[in-house]
């Protein structure tokens, strides 16, 4: 009811008209973040023959000030791109920074403030070593209560995975299958950081990071940038004959501390009923209530009542293999508890019922935090435009005529989660 009322005031239609991504890598010291964004930005601009005069404003997407010990990196990019004195702002929300910034760009257009908006995301994680990087990321957990005890996100997610296994019987082999799938998809993505042909035993035999998550269940640190250009309907069709409609957006939140998550009832999607979960205490620490909340709002905005039938592909935030399985459930691709079986039955494989992370996801493409959510939008855009071959120089990952996709961005232990529905127009 609430969301349907919101829809009446949803503002103007918003389209994505172009995108660009740098190849994500562990370290690219020959370029700083400004030049990296510039490369992705020029790729996007040149693809549809735009000049700086065509851009009304921008949104900067980056997570950590610590990684480079530079505050106001956003304005440095705005400056380098030649976008000053146009309006811009920085958006930050941990791992979901990219998804939130993309939605902010959407709002700039939907509100009528801008006709074109560049959303640029970036992160430089290579200026500190991996374990210092983990420490910085862990500062995104409560520094009074959680950081001093665990101080390690993989540890927090591992505890969530253990509880998921306990509640639903999810197995470590099912987790590993997500890693195998995503690393394999990435073999055909030239932008991906870690394409690999793996087996379940490779994943299980790699060094344990935090039980049950091994090195290959966890994404890597990356340097990278990604840019999306958004436009109003009128502008979009002037710029390209094949824009992609951003049909709806959804955002959810949850408590900072895992400890504080309630043990209540599942917010139901149209394809679920209360009796499905009569004994489940939700979300506890097994599921992401913010993910479910985001999906519910996005589905309502797009009129989706049976997600697995009404979506053709998904790019979701698989910082951990366990998160991908948990997210199948949050998004209602299957019921809570069936996520492990979902991957085991191959439903999310490239040739499965609904391809999930055909790009390779975060696990294999990399996770330069502020760029990640924007990268997802670019890969989704190319899929829905059916231009994967042009941009990847390889059409193996191009799905056959996809009409509608969902991108999903997620911050630490599910504190902020975004879901955005994108649709092909032809």
């Amino acid at each position, binding site marked *: 009811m609430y969301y349907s009322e919101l829809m009446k005031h949803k503002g103007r239609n918003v389209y994505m008209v172009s995108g660009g991504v740098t190849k994500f890598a562990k370290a690219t010291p020959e370029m700083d973040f400004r030049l990296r964004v510039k490369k992705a930005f020029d790729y996007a601009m040149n693809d549809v023959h735009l000049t700086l005069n065509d851009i009304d404003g921008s949104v900067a997407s980056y997570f950590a000030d610590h990684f480079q*010990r530079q505050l106001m990196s956003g304005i440095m990019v705005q400056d380098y791109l030649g976008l000053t004195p146009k309006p811009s702002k920085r958006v930050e929300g941990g791992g979901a920074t990219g998804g939130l910034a993309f939605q902010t760009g959407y709002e700039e257009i939907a509100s009528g403030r801008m006709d074109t908006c560049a959303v640029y995301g970036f992160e430089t994680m290579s200026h500190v*070593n991996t374990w210092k990087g983990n420490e910085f990321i862990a500062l995104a957990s409560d520094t009074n209560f959680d950081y001093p005890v665990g101080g390690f996100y993989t540890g927090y997610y591992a505890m969530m995975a*253990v509880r998921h296994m306990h509640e639903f019987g999810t197995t470590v082999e099912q987790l590993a299958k997500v890693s195998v799938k995503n690393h394999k998809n990435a073999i055909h993505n030239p932008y991906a950081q870690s394409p690999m042909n793996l087996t379940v035993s490779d994943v299980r035999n790699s060094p344990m990071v935090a039980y049950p998550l091994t090195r290959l269940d966890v994404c890597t640190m990356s340097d990278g940038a990604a840019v999306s250009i958004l436009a109003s309907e009128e502008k979009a069709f002037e710029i390209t004959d094949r824009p992609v409609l951003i049909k709806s957006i959804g955002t959810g939140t949850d408590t900072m*501390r895992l400890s504080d998550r309630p043990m209540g009832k599942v917010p139901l999607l149209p394809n679920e009923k209360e009796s499905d979960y009569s004994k489940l205490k939700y979300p506890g620490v097994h599921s992401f209530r913010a993910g479910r909340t985001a999906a519910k709002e996005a589905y309502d905005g797009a009129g989706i009542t049976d997600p697995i039938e009404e979506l053709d592909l998904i790019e979701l935030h698989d910082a951990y293999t366990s998160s991908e399985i948990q997210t199948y459930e949050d998004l209602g691709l299957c019921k809570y508890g069936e996520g492990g079986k979902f991957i085991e039955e191959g439903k999310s494989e490239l040739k499965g019922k609904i391809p999930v992370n055909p790009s390779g996801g975060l696990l294999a493409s990399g996770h330069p935090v502020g760029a990640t959510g924007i990268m997802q939008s670019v890969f989704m855009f190319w899929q829905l435009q059916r231009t994967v071959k042009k941009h990847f120089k390889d059409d193996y990952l191009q799905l056959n005529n996809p009409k509608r996709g969902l991108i999903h961005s997620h911050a630490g232990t599910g504190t902020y989660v975004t879901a955005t529905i994108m649709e092909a127009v032809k």
Partner: protein
Amino acid sequence: MTINPNAKMEETQNGTEVYSIDPLIVKSHYEIDYIHSYAQDSEFFRALGKKKIMGSKCKKCGYTYATPRSHCMMCGAETEWYQLPNTGKVHTFTTCYFGSEEFLKETPFNLIMVEFENVDSLFMARLIGADLDDLYIGMPVTAKFRRNQKFSPTDVYFVPVAQPDKKKRR
């Protein structure tokens, strides 16, 4: 007169650590001490010195938290301090073999979420005195407290409750 065209910056022997010449990559050091206030949560840290774990209870709706929080997330009302039991059960667990730089030297270490009877939320802590193979959900655990307080949440940690016929479950 202060004008001096021969002014010269003093030279030092500190130098800079260089990792690479092209691109030029140098070492940049950063360190800081914060004057950190625990503010409205101060009592939690003080109480650990008295071997008490203090959670919160909503004065209005009665929701109980195993963590300090001075206002209720369910109804927005003020909470009061509420002493938690010193024994509980493992709600979930992990063993970390890697970690943030600050904790690398402590690996491997166990993290647990503790559930207390009749308390609505959980508590995150370290567990010692057990290996990964010993841990299971539902395992009874009891709190122990550091004698020399650091005013950190790790002033309390948990150990397994001694059991005559220890049942292992995964």
